[in-house]
C-alpha cells in the first residue's frame, strides 16, 4: 500500500479510537488507553536503556516518579506554586534526565545482573525518600502524597473540562498523550537510526569492542540513561496532571518490573514492538476483569472468582508468550530486511582485491 495512504489510515484510526472505544466498551476503556499511552512512553524510555544500550534497569519507575512529583509539587497547593504546564513538561524531562545521569554514573562499571540490583536499589531509594521527606520539613507530603494537583492547562484551557457531554475530559487527555507518545516514538526512532543509536547497540552487543572502536562507552551509556530517564519524566508529569494525586504507592518496584515486561514482551529494541507490548500489558489485566462475566455467559455460572484468577491468568500469559515467542511478540524486522537484502546484493556483486586472491 502507498505510504501516504497508510499514514492517513493510521492517523484516522488514532483519531477515531477514543470515540469507537467509548461507543463499544465505555469510557473506562478510553481511560485505560490513556494509561496505555503513558506506559508506552515509559516503555519507549526503558527501551533506550535496556533495548538499545542493553543495560538492565530494574529501577526505571524512579524517573516516572521524579517527573510526577516535579509536576505535583510545583503545580498544586502543596507549596502554593502553580507553574504552567508548558514550563513543567520540559522541566520534568530535564530533571528526570539529570537524575538519570546521577544514578547512572556509579553503575557504569557494573555488568548485567549487578547493574540490575543496583538500579533496583536506586528505584527503592527514591521511593523511600519520597515516602519519608515529610519530616522534619514537609517536602514531598510523605506517604499521604500530594493532592489537588492542577489539571493540565494548555493556553487557558483546562483539560479537565469536557468539551461537551460527548467529548469528556478523558478524550482531551487522550489527544495530548497521543501527541506526546508520537513525539517520543519519533525521537526514539530518529535516535535509533543515528550515530548515537548505533553506538548504543554496539555497547549492547560488545562493550569492549565498542570501546576499542573509539566509542566513549561511559558518555554514551550516560546519554542512554539520560534519554531514557527523560521520557520517564515526561510520562510522569503527564500522569500527575491527569490523576490529580500522586503518592509513593504508584512508584513501586512492581511497576518497574511491569515496564520491563512490556519492553521484553513486545520485542526489545523494536519501537513498534515496545509500544505494542505496553498497550497489551496495560490492557490485559483490565480485560481479564471480564473473566467473570465470560464464565457467566459460557457456563451460566461463575466458577472461579475473577479477582482471584485475574492475576493468575496474567502470570500464565507472560510465561506462554515468552515460551512461544522468546524474542518478543513483535521483534525487530532485521531478519526480514536481511533476507530481502540477499537478492538485492546478489545482483551487483563486487569484485575486489580481496577476491582477486582466489
Amino acid at each position: 500500500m502507498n505510504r501516504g495512504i497508510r499514514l492517513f489510515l493510521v492517523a484516522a484510526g488514532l483519531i477515531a479510537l477514543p470515540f469507537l472505544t467509548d461507543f463499544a466498551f465505555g469510557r473506562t476503556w478510553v481511560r485505560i488507553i490513556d494509561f496505555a499511552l503513558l506506559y508506552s512512553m515509559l516503555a519507549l524510555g526503558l527501551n533506550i536503556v535496556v533495548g538499545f544500550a542493553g543495560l538492565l534497569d530494574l529501577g526505571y519507575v524512579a524517573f516516572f516518579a521524579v517527573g510526577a512529583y516535579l509536576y505535583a509539587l510545583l503545580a498544586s497547593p502543596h507549596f502554593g506554586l502553580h507553574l504552567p504546564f508548558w514550563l513543567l513538561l520540559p522541566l520534568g524531562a530535564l530533571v528526570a534526565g539529570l537524575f538519570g545521569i546521577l544514578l547512572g554514573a556509579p553503575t557504569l562499571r557494573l555488568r548485567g545482573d549487578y547493574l540490575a540490583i543496583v538500579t533496583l536499589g536506586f528505584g527503592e531509594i527514591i521511593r523511600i525518600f519520597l515516602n519519608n521527606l515529610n519530616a522534619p520539613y514537609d517536602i514531598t507530603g510523605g506517604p499521604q502524597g500530594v493532592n489537588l494537583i492542577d489539571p493540565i492547562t494548555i493556553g487557558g484551557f483546562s483539560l479537565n473540562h469536557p468539551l461537551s457531554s460527548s467529548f469528556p475530559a478523558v478524550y482531551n487527555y487522550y489527544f495530548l498523550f497521543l501527541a506526546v507518545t508520537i513525539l517520543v516514538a519519533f525521537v526514539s526512532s530518529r535516535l535509533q537510526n543515528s550515530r548515537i543509536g548505533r553506538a548504543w547497540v554496539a555497547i549492547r552487543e560488545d562493550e569492549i569492542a565498542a570501546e576499542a572502536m573509539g566509542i566513549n562507552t561511559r558518555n554514551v551509556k550516560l546519554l542512554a540513561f539520560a534519554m531514557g530517564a527523560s521520557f520517564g519524566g515526561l510520562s510522569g508529569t503527564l500522569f500527575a496532571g491527569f490523576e490529580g494525586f500522586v503518592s509513593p504507592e504508584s512508584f513501586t518496584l512492581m511497576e518497574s518490573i511491569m515496564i520491563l515486561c512490556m519492553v521484553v514482551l513486545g520485542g526489545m529494541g523494536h519501537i513498534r514492538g515496545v509500544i505494542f507490548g505496553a498497550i497489551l500489558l496495560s490492557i490485559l489485566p483490565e480485560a481479564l476483569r471480564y473473566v467473570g462475566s465470560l464464565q457467566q455467559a459460557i457456563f451460566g455460572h461463575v466458577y472461579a472468582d475473577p479477582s482471584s484468577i485475574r492475576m493468575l491468568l496474567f502470570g500464565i500469559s507472560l510465561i506462554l508468550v515468552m515460551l512461544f515467542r522468546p524474542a518478543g511478540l513483535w521483534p525487530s524486522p532485521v531478519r526480514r530486511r536481511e533476507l530481502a537484502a540477499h537478492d538485492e546484493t546478489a545482483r551487483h556483486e563486487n569484485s575486489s582485491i580481496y577476491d582477486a586472491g582466489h
Partner: protein
Amino acid sequence: MPATDLLLVSGISKHFGGLSALTDVSFSIGRGEIYALIGPNGAGKTTLFNVITGIYSPDSGSFCLNGQNMAGRKASAMAKAGIARTFQNIRLFSNMTALENVMVGRHSRTRAGVFGAIFRNASSIREEQQIAARARDLLSYVGISRHEHMLARNLSYGDQRRLEIARALATDPMLLALDEPAAGMNHSDTDSLRILLERIRMDGVTILLIEHDVKLVMGICDRLCVLNFGHKIAEGTPEEVRSNPAVIEAYLGNS
C-alpha cells in the same frame, strides 16, 4: 621534533596478581612498517597488545604514538588517537549488519549528537551520508560488500575477519593492530589476507601484527619482535630473528 617512529614503546611492565605478564618491554615501529609480535603461547603478546590498545593500563613504562604519551588512556582514546584493532576471537557486533558494524567504526571521526539525530539538520544528514558511503567503500575494499545487509553473526568465518578489519579501518587509524588475523584461515584465505595487508600498508597505514602462522609473518613483515615469558628476547628483520639463538631455543624448548 618530528618523530621518525610512529609508535615508541619503552619499558612496559604489567602484572596480574603475582604473575608478571610483561617485564620491561621496549620496541619501536616506524611509519609504514608491517611489524609483528611473535612468541610461544603465554609469552605476553596479547597482554602487550591490550596495553597498546588501551584495554589494560600498564603498571610501568610508557608508549608514544606520534610523539605523544598514551600509556594508561582508555581504549576509546586510543582509537581516537589513531590505533585501531581487531580481536583474536572475533568480536563483531553480531546482531548488527555488516554495514552497521563498519558505520560504528566511524564513531570517533564524526560528531552528530542528540540534536542532530533528532532534527536531522543539513550537516547531520550530510555526515550520515558520508558515514554510509565510507562504510560501503571499506566493505568493498575488504571484498564483502555483497554481504552489506547481512547480520554479522551470519557471515562466514573468513568474512567476519575481513569485516573486523574494515571496521577497524573505519576509524582512520595510523596504526592498525591485528590480533592473529589468519587464525583458523585456510591457505587461500591467508594468501588473500596477505594481499590485503600489503595494500593497507601501501595506503599509508602502519600495521602491528600478532600471528602464529610463522610463514605468513616471515613473508610479510618488515621487522618483528619476539616475546617469551613476558620478556623481549629478540627484535629485528625476519632474517635476523630467524638466526637468533634465543629465539630458536624458545621455540624448540617450547615445542
